[in-house]
């Protein structure tokens, strides 16, 4: 799981096609370089390129690490994929606590680099809570994910990785995800009385807590 992809992941494409690694705008005329391959007598120089099959970079991951995970936690491992040489393991939300202890202790992922969330409002369980872990012993990174629906609690990681204290507060602040067992789950960046969770997808970029702004700043709008 190197941090830098040394070469493009997709296998080399035939010279006639555009390499998958350099996406061009679909509106780009195919005949931008007419002197190379396109015959001069091409009747339709501006014909759009044939639709490429969608690039799928996510492949199932089946290395030793995942094997150990599956052996130990079985059905709690929802999915294990590799995306651009990064290991991503989705686990059951309910069992995140014990999995985290195992990951830190036996798999030696001592450092929680980052904990964040992604909102997919159309999904049944709209949130991904994402933990980016690093192991000093193996010089490896691992990403753990759990799915959480609106209002579902995620076990707090504060007793496993103390870093997650502020990170979980930030996720709570921005997404409204509640972490069960957090010692002090309050807003961290926004004012405590703020209403709404700005990083949710249904929160518009111009939206704000107008009542708060009016009361505390004495202006109609912060925009």
């Amino acid at each position: 799981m190197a941090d830098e992809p040394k070469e493009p992941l997709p296998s080399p494409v035939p010279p006639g096609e555009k390499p998958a690694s350099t996406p061009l705008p679909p509106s780009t005329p195919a005949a931008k370089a007419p002197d190379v391959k396109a015959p001069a007598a091409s009747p339709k120089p501006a014909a759009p390129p044939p639709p490429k099959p969608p690039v799928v970079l996510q492949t199932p991951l089946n290395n030793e690490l995942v094997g150990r995970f599956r052996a130990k936690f079985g059905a709690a491992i929802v999915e294990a994929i590799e995306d651009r040489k990064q290991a991503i393991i989705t686990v059951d939300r309910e069992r995140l606590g014990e999995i985290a202890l195992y990951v830190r202790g036996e798999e030696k992922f001592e450092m929680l680099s980052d904990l964040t969330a992604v909102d997919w409002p159309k999904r049944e369980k709209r949130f991904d809570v994402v933990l980016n872990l690093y192991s000093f012993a193996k010089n490896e990174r691992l990403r753990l994910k759990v799915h959480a629906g609106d209002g579902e609690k995620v076990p707090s990681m504060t007793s496993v990785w103390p870093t997650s204290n502020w990170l979980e507060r930030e996720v709570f602040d921005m997404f409204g995800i509640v972490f069960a067992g957090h010692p002090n789950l309050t807003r961290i960046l926004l004012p405590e009385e703020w209403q709404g969770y700005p990083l949710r997808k249904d929160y518009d970029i111009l939206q704000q807590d107008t009542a708060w702004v009016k009361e505390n700043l004495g202006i109609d709008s912060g925009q």
Partner: protein
Amino acid sequence: MEFKGEMALSTEATTEHKTQLGADELVINMGPQHPSTHGVLRVKLKLDGERVIGSECVIGYLHRGVEKIGENRTYQQFAPYVDRMDYVAAVSNGLGYCEAIEKLLIVEAPPRARVIRTILTELQRIASHLLWLGTHALDIGALTPLFYCFREREEILKIFEKYCGARLTTHAFRIGGLQYDAYDTLEKDVERFCKDFVSRVVEYEDLLTQNRIWLGRTKGVGILTATDAIAYGVTGPVLRASGVKWDIRKAAPYAAYDQYKFEIPVGTTGDTYDRYLVRMEEMRQSRLICLQAIENIPTGPILAKVGKVLKPPPGEVYHAIEAPKGELGYYVVSDGSVQPYRVRIRPPSFINLEAFDRMVRGHLVADVVAIIGTLDIVLGEVDR
């Protein structure tokens, strides 16, 4: 670096100092408008006499919703915004972002671009450390280093200005490589700076390293053990001063760092003095990297083939670089459109500041200033 049992959480108060002086507990505010908090950081301190028995950082005064903005801009449009996070190390911020998007697109910057990126980023590291040294020393009462540090920092900013026209928020790089090629005398300018700089570091060290007041104010202050440092996710010079030899430039080389020889300085006790020594040595090492890099800048293109409209294939990346303050990570999720679905920035200052409470307990109020300084935080990055 073994974990033995559960880590004690910072919320558990250390009882050994409780009512040691027989004085009542007192809660005082530091900041947000305080010259030594390096921006708008507010710290609530719980005191027993002169001693700190608890602290709470109140942050967010500079929150601009950078991550939300990122979701509403195209990939290229968002690039200048990242410069405004750690605004004293804008080049490093830009490098991390551009590389993360390149990883998402599966393209690689050409060799020439990577070397020039390395040179500018290392100069930026020196500039960032110089600003840290000047202000940190000023907080503790040494006025002179500030003027010395700003003198050398000015030379670096002049190089940036010549390169891209901006001094602070440079937006120096583009996704896929560089927008501008190196100007004609870049190598000469960098070489001259490096030549002068070697004696300049000696000047700073003459003022501080053996200075009795400096030693008294920094030795044994704000100790962070290696175990604690890792548990709190602290990175960068703060982690290395605690004795953990870990630098992303070595652990997962990016840009052109795999081509150059340099050392990772580490400390032993993890106190403020060690962090000072580590950063001083890092400046010397950065200078060495710059000297090696200017010797042989490859010729060739400076921009990889990326389209004018970037539509990375769906997926996600986490890319981290060693910014002057620590691990600067970008977690970017693409849904295949022209705008990132999610941009998460892992800010080193934010996470390093989390360890502040751990470091400050049991120390005197005057040491709080030293500990804030030694963490080298930038509030633009803490609050984003």
